[in-house]
């Protein structure tokens, strides 16, 4: 099996604060992987260590078979990276940005021109090629950043929250691109806050407080939710939740979703369930809530 990324106890501290705490994972080449986690959980820090932008303070790792501690310059030639912040030159046009990055990857003139044309077509930016990058809206900018990051045909793409600030349509378009690259054999690692995006991944790692708390395919992750999930429709789910709590029921695993209350139980359906109660299939969000709650409960236990 060809390994794209392998880390072993990868750790990064900033002073006393541990941003990434012993990350160990093995990602085979090919496919789309997602890092899913709340703000500040250490996703960007982890990705930056893989890209050679930050030195780990502990542990080890390799990217495309190259050591991240000693061979980061070799790694840089073979990966594409899109950072969380918009990081292109807003005073340069779309074409000039692409041309600049093509030059940085030492692409010769004619080859560069050909690849830029292709990248423009792929990212649907051909009509905008002479527009200053500053004039592009969020979704377009992200596509341009992606275009710049793939000119040199990287074997691994690291996309750090590449779709933040894009509207649903732009996000859909962006994911179409990601699938294309994956289909062409590129390994793609994305970080995201969006659960629906995570569903698109072949494999997901849930990250919290710098550590992986779950790591599997979306299907397996959903199936791993213990117990069953029930949905109790109610015109006033807040009132229902408060009422049930007041009656002494353990509502710690319950949460409101739209016009209904979701309750997870192990074993029989909850006793208080009314007529409309349905057993539902868990979504990633339900697992996410479960994992975060579990971790939080563990942390608060003395």
């Amino acid at each position, binding site marked *: 099996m060809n390994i794209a990324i392998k880390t072993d106890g990868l750790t990064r501290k900033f002073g006393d604060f541990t941003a990434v705490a012993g990350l160990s994972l093995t990602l085979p080449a090919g496919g789309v992987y997602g890092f899913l986690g709340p703000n500040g959980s250490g996703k960007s820090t982890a990705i*930056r260590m893989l*890209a*050679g*932008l*930050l*030195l780990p303070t502990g542990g080890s790792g390799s990217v495309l078979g190259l050591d991240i501690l000693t061979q*980061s*310059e070799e790694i*840089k*030639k073979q*990966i594409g*990276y899109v*950072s969380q*912040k*918009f*990081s*292109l*030159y*807003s*005073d*340069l046009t779309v074409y*000039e940005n692409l*041309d*600049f*990055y*093509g*030059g*940085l*990857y*030492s*692409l*010769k003139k004619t080859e560069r021109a050909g690849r830029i044309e292709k990248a423009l077509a792929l990212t649907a930016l051909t009509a905008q090629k002479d527009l200053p990058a500053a004039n592009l809206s969020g979704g377009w900018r992200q596509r341009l950043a992606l275009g*710049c990051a793939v000119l040199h045909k990287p074997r691994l793409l690291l996309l750090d929250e590449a779709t933040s600030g894009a509207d649903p349509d732009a996000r859909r378009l962006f994911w179409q691109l990601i699938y294309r690259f994956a289909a062409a054999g590129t390994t793609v690692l994305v970080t995201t806050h969006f659960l629906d995006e995570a569903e698109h991944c072949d494999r997901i790692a849930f990250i919290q407080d710098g550590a992986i708390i779950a790591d599997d395919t979306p299907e397996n992750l959903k199936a791993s939710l213990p117990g069953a999930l029930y949905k109790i429709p109610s015109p006033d789910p807040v009132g229902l939740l408060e009422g049930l709590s007041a009656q002494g029921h353990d509502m710690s695993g319950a949460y409101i979703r739209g016009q209904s209350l979701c309750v997870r139980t192990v074993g029989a359906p909850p006793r208080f369930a009314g007529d409309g109660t349905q057993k539902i299939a868990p979504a990633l969000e339900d697992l996410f809530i479960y994992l975060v709650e579990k971790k939080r409960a563990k942390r608060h236990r003395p």
Partner: protein
Amino acid sequence: MTRLTALIKKEFIQMRRDRITLAIMVVMPLFQVLIFGFAINTDVKHLAAAVFDQSLSRESREFIEALTATEYYDITCAASSLQEITDQLQAGGVKAGIIIPPDYAAGLKNGRGSQVQVIVDATDSIAATSAINTAQLVGESKSREILVRKLRAAGIAGLETSALDVRIRPWYNPDFITAFYMVPGLCATILTLTMILTTSLAIIRERERGTLEQLMVTPLRPYELMLGKIIPYIAMGYTQLTVLLLAAKLVFGVPFQGSVFLLYLLTGLFITASLGLGLFISNTAKTQMQGIILSFSFIMPSVLLSGFMFPREAMPTFFYYLGYLVPITFYLKIIRGIVLKGASAEQLWPQILVLCAFIAIVMSVSILRFKKRLD
């Protein structure tokens, strides 16, 4: 090479797009050289003076006329009491007070001699010095004139010439025109100021905009980044130099004794040294504000230590040697040497070598210090 050309091309495009900065870079040096060139004049003329003439004689009028004829004094006030002179000096209305005693004419006639008091506001030492020198000169020449007249009246002749004749020949700037000395120095100061400031922001700006992070994940080498940040601004520096030299020639009439080609060639070294210094600052500072403050805290003392305004020979030993740490000290020798004295490359070897060493040091430090990492 492809990477470096890509970087240089990008810098030129950005420079061209930022029209306002570009205009400032060309117009600002022009304004600075005009303002400083005209305003800095150590030869202080037309000092406002008050006269309290108690003698009111032909002799006293002659003395006052001799003073005003030098153009160093403008009599703006005829005072009628000592107190009035004191008040005027205190208020700053005049910079000098001339007091002629009632027995001035009588004293000259009967040979006892007379006293004229010149009170000078010495808060501005440069103005005071030229006022004092002028008053002394006028006093001496007047008294010699009177002496000769008297001797001749007594029948003794042949004493018009002094016994000792010291002939001073001021070379290179015979008319003591301050601008000739100041304007080449100004060119150096303005060049180093703008060059250091532009590059000091070059890397910080990319860092703050997040583009540096993107550059760091490409195969770009640190030395390519540093060169790419310097080369486009050398062109900018030469543009400024041209504007400055044209102003020096056309506005101030500075005579160019030496080779303009040599001046351009050697100025390239100074521009590069200044740009390298700016890069060094850019690598050290974390924010644009820090970059600007650091730049100024380097530029201000280095201009003073360089001997641009005050001769280095007058500085305490420590500060004299401190001046050897800044490139502008050496470039001043080059530009003044070539422009005013027609110096040749052979005569400027020490300065050329020092500037080359300076470039080598700041560039290597900047390149070695630059890590392609965020921490």
